[in-house]
């Protein structure tokens, strides 16, 4: 039987957003990240352009 789950490889901003969207649709997601914490490069940023909002 076909599975109804999704695998996402990479827990940066793109992976996290895709996981949240699929989760909101009621689809089970496995988010795999190689580092101890998710967040990716974005977690290392201070503020984002063009609004200078904080990233975390």
């Amino acid at each position, binding site marked *: 039987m076909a599975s*109804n789950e*999704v695998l996402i490889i*990479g827990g940066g901003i793109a992976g996290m957003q895709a996981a949240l969207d699929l989760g909101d649709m009621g*689809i089970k997601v496995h988010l795999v990240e190689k580092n101890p*914490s998710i*967040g990716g490069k974005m977690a290392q940023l201070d503020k984002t352009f063009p609004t200078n909002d904080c990233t975390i």
Partner: protein
Amino acid sequence: MLAYSEVTEFSGQVGDFRAKVHRRARYVDQSKCTACGACAEKCPTRIPNEFNFGLNERKAIYKDYAQGIPSVYTIDPNHCRVLQGKKCGVCAKVCQAKAIDYEQKDYDVELNVSAVIVATGYELFDATQIPEYGYGKLPNVISSLEMERLLSAGGPTSGHLTRPSTIRGEVRLKELPKLIAKAEKDENQDGLVQLKQEQEWLEDHVHRFHLAKKLGFIQCVGSRDFRFHKYCSSYCCMHSIKEAIIAREHESETQSYIFYMDLRTVGKGFEEYKVRGAEVSGLKYIRGRVAEITQDKDLNPVVRYEDTERRTVQSLTLDMVILANACSAPKNTPKVAQLLGVALDENNFLKTHPNRPLDTSVPGIFTCGCAQGPLDIPESVAQASSAAARAAEVVMTGGQALAV
């Protein structure tokens, strides 16, 4: 969520993929750890913190950043004394939640999924490949992400733009008294003279140079360069402008110069941001390629460049230079691509379908973000939602939607 894990085996087809995920041991029980941080406070082992590019230190039991998810500490097995077979056990003693478990083992998880999204992101271009810019040799020439950490209130300098030569100088000054005492004990006269000279020079340097106020940003470092990446990395113009604006917000005397080929501020509100940078934050945009960066005796970077608008070759002495490193495909992308069976393009980003820009060469495997090419955050987020929708189509129809 499977953090601290990697996909090691992969097979199957759309609607029925099988993946084996290798979960690395944290040596901390995730269900018990409250992330109070007592363990890291007492851990005796200090190592350079890679999250802050070695600009400060972390302990052998650590968390990349305070807000990190999952909110749990991790023991670095390469540096922990106990896991290296020595005596310690301090973290286990101070942990009130009894979460430390030195016996924890790696394990594998088998997954059966209908669709896959590859969001493996990018890596910063290694600027040591451009020796004329002196990255890695000149202490006050840094990458764009190092600049982010310096600007961050949660970073190694709590948001102050302390020059790396000062940060490293202060660390060295703490070590020197011990080395001098040792040289005195060993009666090593030559060594003693050298160490004392170094101490004197550093004390003067650290005293005179603290905050960086005159900044140079060099664009297209590794991008639009036929020796390295031919493509434009797209976000770096805006990224440098943003860093320069924030630096000015932190310290009103900051003067920034941006050396560019073209300023590509394409995006909603981006052009206005660039203009505001010049008008409100006093940024100076200089059109020209930087040929070489050297440094003077005070470790100030000296930039030699051609101003193509004035048609002159000039030099400018700055406090700190920030390189806009290109967005490169991660080095292990070929390995990931081989594992999943997806094709790559000539730049080692994931190859995508010309009409369906998030479909890889394998039906049921999608991609989003910088894994498929350089993107800024708003575009990455938009692609991610789109990839999620594509994956949902597969789940809802059992792969039938892709048959068209």
